């Protein structure tokens, strides 16, 4: 029931928001809805019984598909991340003005519905449904409220991911007809023993769908453009939560369903991921656009997650789990900073900025923490994840870990470059009149920074939360 609530609240909230004509009301209403969802989500993580987290109803009886929701540890964690992200985004961008605000917030809430559904679905067809449901509102959000080149860019993004999910659909149908139970249920999918040459193809069908979403090199080119052109609130959701869909899906729907193939192809995928990490880091070094820089940095981080998943050991997977959550927090924080700068100064060009630390010291401090979290400094949350992921990768292959490790250095290069050029140095004509960030942004950033530190020092709650998922996967 709880899991159903998590989907229903934003869905109904979103539909209602469509009707609210007043921008202010819509904004506040959406915020309230997201806060209620957060409360439910917190309850689901902290106090809900397992039975409350399940929901099962008939959906397509002749077809072996049921409306089954189920929140295991990973699901709880990611729904929590989703539930946290939305209020955070709403508050942080509270001062942004949108035309047709009610539509904006309604679509945002619908996105939340889709995202939560993806994380909660225990039926592959239902999963596919939510997978697409999460995409459509984002497409509209980015295309209506985005930047100059939004139409082409978001369309590229859309078609790219749509193509991926269509491929996955082919895989799903194929799997269904190889499922002796004629069912789409997660549990019965886990029982399928697919062998032969075709199973490799089907594996890739799924993987490419997820790889595009994550995105893994070389399927990533939609991402920097999409992040750049989307309105920041959408970018936050895209990079904070949505890319986790891909990672999540690999863990939930790929590895346990195709264990042999996953092991067989892990080499190729890890090579791709590691190449992607370095490649994206190098490009990030050369970026002059704040948003694109964060985008490429995100690609590098996701590459590590992907590699660690396919390293196929518990340590790496634990790292991925916690990193999914932490990367979400961190990257949203970075976007908030980027948004604060763009809203105030009207530019995202790193070379045009400088000296903000004098004008906005609080922002500078918060950014520095975020930046160091981005490069996984110990005692920030990202360290835990990256440490475990590199460790997992190391167990898989020493060289893979060593080469991937270079991205640690490159990460420091581009992150510190950014910090230096934006915040340090002297002010210039652009930044002369900069002022400190507003209260809502400040406080939300402080909350994020506290989360970063707390989880960096004491990550155990997340491990405890996701332990059962890992057990399921490795005991299979």
């Amino acid at each position, binding site marked *: 029931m709880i899991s159903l609530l998590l989907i229903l609240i934003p869905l109904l909230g979103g539909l209602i928001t469509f009707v609210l004509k007043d921008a202010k009301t819509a904004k506040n209403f959406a915020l309230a809805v997201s806060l209620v969802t957060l409360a439910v989500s917190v309850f689901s993580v902290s106090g809900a019984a397992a039975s409350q987290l399940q929901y099962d109803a008939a959906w397509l009886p002749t077809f072996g598909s049921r409306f089954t929701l189920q929140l295991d540890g990973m699901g709880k964690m990611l729904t929590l991340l989703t539930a946290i992200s939305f209020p955070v985004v709403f508050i942080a961008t509270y001062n942004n003005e949108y035309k047709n605000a009610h539509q904006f917030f309604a679509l945002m809430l619908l996105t939340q519905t889709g995202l939560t559904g993806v994380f909660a679905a225990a039926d592959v067809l239902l999963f596919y449904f939510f997978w697409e449901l999460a995409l459509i509102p984002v497409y509209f959000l980015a295309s209506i409220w985005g930047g100059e080149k939004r139409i082409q860019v978001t369309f590229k993004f859309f078609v790219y991911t749509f193509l991926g999910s269509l491929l996955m659909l082919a895989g799903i149908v194929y799997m269904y007809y190889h499922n002796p139970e004629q069912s789409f249920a997660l549990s019965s999918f886990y029982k399928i023993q697919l062998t032969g040459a075709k199973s490799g193809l089907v594996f890739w069908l799924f993987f490419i769908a997820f790889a595009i979403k994550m995105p893994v090199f070389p399927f990533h*080119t939609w991402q920097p453009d999409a992040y750049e052109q989307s309105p920041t609130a959408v970018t936050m959701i895209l990079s904070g939560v949505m890319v986790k869909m891909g990672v999540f899906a690999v863990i939930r729907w790929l590895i346990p369903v195709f264990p042999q193939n996953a092991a067989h192809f892990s080499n190729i995928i890890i090579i791709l991921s590691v190449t992607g990490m370095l490649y994206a880091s*190098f*490009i990030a070094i050369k970026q002059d656009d704040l948003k694109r820089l964060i985008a490429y940095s995100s690609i590098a981080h996701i590459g590590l997650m992907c590699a660690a998943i396919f390293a196929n050991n518990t340590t790496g997977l634990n790292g991925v789990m916690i990193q999914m959550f932490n990367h979400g927090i961190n990257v949203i924080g970075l976007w908030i900073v980027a948004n604060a700068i763009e809203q105030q100064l009207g530019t995202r060009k790193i070379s045009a900025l400088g000296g903000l630390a004098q004008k906005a010291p609080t922002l500078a401090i918060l950014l520095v923490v975020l930046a160091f979290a981005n490069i996984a400094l110990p005692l920030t949350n990202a360290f835990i994840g990256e440490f475990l992921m590199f*460790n997992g990768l190391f167990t898989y292959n020493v060289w893979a870990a060593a080469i991937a490790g270079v991205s640690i*250095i490159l990460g420091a290069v581009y992150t510190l470059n950014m910090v*230096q050029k934006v915040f340090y*140095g002297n002010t210039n004509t652009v930044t002369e009149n900069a002022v400190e960030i507003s209260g809502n942004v400040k406080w939300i950033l402080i909350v994020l920074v506290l989360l970063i530190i707390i989880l960096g020092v004491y990550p155990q709650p997340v491990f405890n939360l996701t332990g059962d998922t890992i057990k399921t996967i490795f005991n299979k």
Partner: protein
Amino acid sequence: MNQLVYLVPLFPLLGFLINGLGRKSLSKSMIGTIGSGAILASFVVSLMLFFQVKNGAVATVNYFNFINVQNLTIPFAFQVDQLSSLFLLIITGVGFLIHLYSTAYMHEEEPQHFGRYFAYLNLFVFSMLLLVMGANYVIMFIGWEGVGLCSYLLIGFWFKNDNYNYAAKKAFIMNRIGDLGFLLAIFWIIAKLGTVNYADVFTNDSIQKLSSTDITAITILLFVGAMGKSAQIPLYTWLPDAMAGPTPVSALIHAATMVTAGIYMIARSNLLYSASEVAQNLVAIIGLATALFSATIALKQNDIKKVLAYSTVSQLGYMFLGLGVGAYTGAVFHVMTHAFFKALLFLGAGSVIHAMHHEQDIRKMGGLKKHLPITHITFLLGCIAISGIPPFSGFFSKDEILAAAFAHNPIYWGLGVAGAAMTAFYMFRLYATTFLGTFRGTQDQEHHLHESPSAMTIPLIVLAVLSVIGGFVGVPEVLGGHHALHEFLSPVLVTEQHHEIAHQTEYMLMGISVAIAAIAIIFAINKFSKKPDLQDAQGLGKTLENKWYIDELYDAVIVNPLNNLAGFFKNVVEKSGIDGIVNGVGRLVSYSSRQIRLIQSGQVGGYILFMVMAIVVIVLIWVNDGFIYKLFTK
């Protein structure tokens, strides 16, 4: 004892939080008091711990599980034993003096930045304490990166200056290169042993579980980490640049404490290193090379802090030489004495700079002797100490290393002595140019020359005393001592397998090194007190002044190619390559769209012709039960 342990890092952490959060509301004196007080409190606790350790109480305290997943448990634990308690004393002790010094040195800063400064400084001490106290490699790594962060923050403390920011960034990134090695070493240990706790790793059982390749790889990777943090070839170039930070910072971080983290790490892992000859040799060679190489650069530097910086690099090289030849105690001993005299020298230099209104070029100083008497005396003592003149502290520690080097390989010793001679030479070049002779600065500067306030001179005096007498904790047997330090550290350090050197030989070695140092000192004072070397250097000198053009070399060989590679990725591979393919698919579709639609010519005749041809083809496909199909299948 267990109850006390957490207090050591807690005080600086509290100091950091209070100063950091209250930097705008607290007064400067308040900030200074809190900052220094925290470290003092820490020092007091460290002292208590030290004495308990001295009485044999060694403890590992587990607080909580930092990481606890299926196959891996990493506790958040502190270990207080001989090695760490000694380092605790150095860190908090020297740290406190430097804090005290800073209250005066940084007094011109706005309160807000003053608070920031002390917050950073406290955070640094906190990190350093974590590094030293951690009971496993991961906690050490936390501190390890933490000090890197603080170093970054403090080097770039005056963030308006872009050069400083570059220096800060460079320091952090170079450290990161080393950190990668450290991390990989940790992973290697985890992969082989499943634990990172010292208590579990440094046992004979564990060592036996590791193959010789494992040990060599782990130790070399750890050493890569140490190279970064302790500024060894090839990762040393950040340290001289790090002098951009406020001078007390240079004293604390870039001389006394942080840079010795690498020594601490290797000393901590001595059991592993002793099991790998390859790694030991590597450490010794790199250490020696660094010692010599940076000494040559120091010869021609004109920035007071740069000279000291290269001297630091050089001294660190000695420490590594010691580690490499198995003289772990010697290395740790040198860390300690070095902390005293190098902190002293830096603070002295700070005092000079303070007096000279942030002038750092020694060519514009001279004759400061009479204006800054206390600074002068203490500085001189420091110079003597570093030059290895008995009975100053530097003599004992350096001699112990050199003796071990001789036992290991006489050539090491020979080169080491040559380095020591250079050390003596450039230190006294510095001393002579700065304090002797006549003043070469502006009138205005001369007018304002004054001795520093007592908050600055007291630390100088304390450190000078320590520099003078610090060596007596490790008087070697040959000189009639019983080497208290060695005894103290023996539970944690492998006993050095000295090839016993005959006492005569040892006397001779000491004699030679002291003599050479003395000659160098005298030569330097003579040469530079009257007519300092003010001209632009020529030939080799110019090369030395420009640090062998190593920075330029790195730029040309590593930085620029990588930069170009990044540019190539961004502008060519990404745009035309990958994105080009993606967009190309789109363009291909619209191109084929334009072409295919031409078939739709509008002519009925054409349409029907196509249809008839299609019928012909389809029938052909079908003929003979699909001969084309068979063609494909057979």
